[in-house]
């Protein structure tokens, strides 16, 4: 009986839920795999807290901060392009919302290996070799002091570069010195690795290469170069 009642409530709520969704462009996307899917490299508890607490809080705080404003219908990339005009609550939570969604997509179970195709060519052209790219990317991750992110970015000239940003900033933001289209990222906030790796951020970065979803990164790269 209880169950029937639940379905009844769920059913009559559908039109309201749909209406609420239409009012904003911004959605909290499901995690593309199970919490334990990236074990043993990224542990289940970290994934669960990271997605369900940290990421969700950024999303909720972001939607609360823009409620009733034009930003509800403004694409994230457009918001980032003039983020310097926004208060910290929008900058921090918009970044936290968007960055994490990209980060989940950059990973998958049974990932890793090496990129191929045009992405591989571009990496080799910009960094000499895939191994050298990995080395530079990992260094940027270890060197980021405090909380932040590391990015592989397509610049205005179509060339790839590595950048690191503080806190929840990203390479789309007009507060960044070197801007471009991010195609790949790594979260180096302590919450991303502390339960499993504690102070050993370098070990977390080494493990991360085993779960990279290079097909996704390839797609991001292709769509960023197609726009040119």
């Amino acid at each position, binding site marked *: 009986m209880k169950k029937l009642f639940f379905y009844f409530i769920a059913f009559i709520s559908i039109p309201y839920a749909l209406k609420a969704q239409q009012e904003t462009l911004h959605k909290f996307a499901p995690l593309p795999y199970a919490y334990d899917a990236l074990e043993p490299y990224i542990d289940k508890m970290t994934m669960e807290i990271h997605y369900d607490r940290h990421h969700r809080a950024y999303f909720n705080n972001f939607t609360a901060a823009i409620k009733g404003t034009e930003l509800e219908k403004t694409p994230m990339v457009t918001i980032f392009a003039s983020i310097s005009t926004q208060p910290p609550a929008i900058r921090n939570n918009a970044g936290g919302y968007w960055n994490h969604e990209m980060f989940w997509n950059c990973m998958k179970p049974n990932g890793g290996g090496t990129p191929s195709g045009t992405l591989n060519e571009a990496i080799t052209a910009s960094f000499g070799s895939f191994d050298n790219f990995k080395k530079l990317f990992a260094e940027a991750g270890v060197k980021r002091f405090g909380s932040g992110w590391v990015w592989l970015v397509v610049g205005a000239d179509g060339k790839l570069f590595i950048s690191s940003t503080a806190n*929840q900033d990203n390479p789309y933001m007009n507060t960044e010195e070197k801007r471009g289209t991010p195609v790949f990222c790594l979260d180096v*906030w302590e919450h991303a690795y502390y339960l499993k790796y504690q*102070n050993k951020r370098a070990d977390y970065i080494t493990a991360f290469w085993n779960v990279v979803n290079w097909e996704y990164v390839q797609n991001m790269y292709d769509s960023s170069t197609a726009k040119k």
Partner: protein
Amino acid sequence: MDYQFPELPYAYNALEPHIDAMTMEIHYSKHHKTYFDKFVAAIKDTESNGSSLEEIFSQVSKLPMAVRNHGGGLYNHTLFWESMSPNGGGVPSGSLADAINAQYGSFEDFKAKFNDAAANRFGSGWAWLSVKADKSLCVCSSANQDNPLMDISDCKATPILGLDVWEHAYYLKFQNRRPDYISAFWNVVNWEVIQARYDSIIK
């Protein structure tokens, strides 16, 4: 002068259950020790080698970033360990209590202000209670390993109480719940030490 890596003034498990033994061990023996080692390496080839940390901070903007980050990490953690005690908690008394009441209305109002500073620091950083040059108190927060003694600080003062709000300070026990960690912290604050620091500044 030679730089010394200070002893932890109590056992790793002394602040249980408010701050857990594993967090204390990693925080002191890994994080704090690494700041010390990297500070010593970074200061070695500068003119400031041998200067006190206070002197270094007063012109830290002219020194390499590694000195600012790791010198801050060394000093801040030392102050933090000394700010806590297994027999801590309660409320301040004497001249510090008077100053807090005069400035913030009550100890509870001060705590609320400090809690806000600690909870609202986005990313990694510290919350501080400090004494300004005019001897008034001030509550503020700083990013990463910066502190109010640094010439780059926007709340220049002498810190007497510091709370580490980097995620490494609380993640093993509290995960994303920083406010719970901040509440727990008040149970171990060593008010006698904070009082002594206050007295030595206003004397």
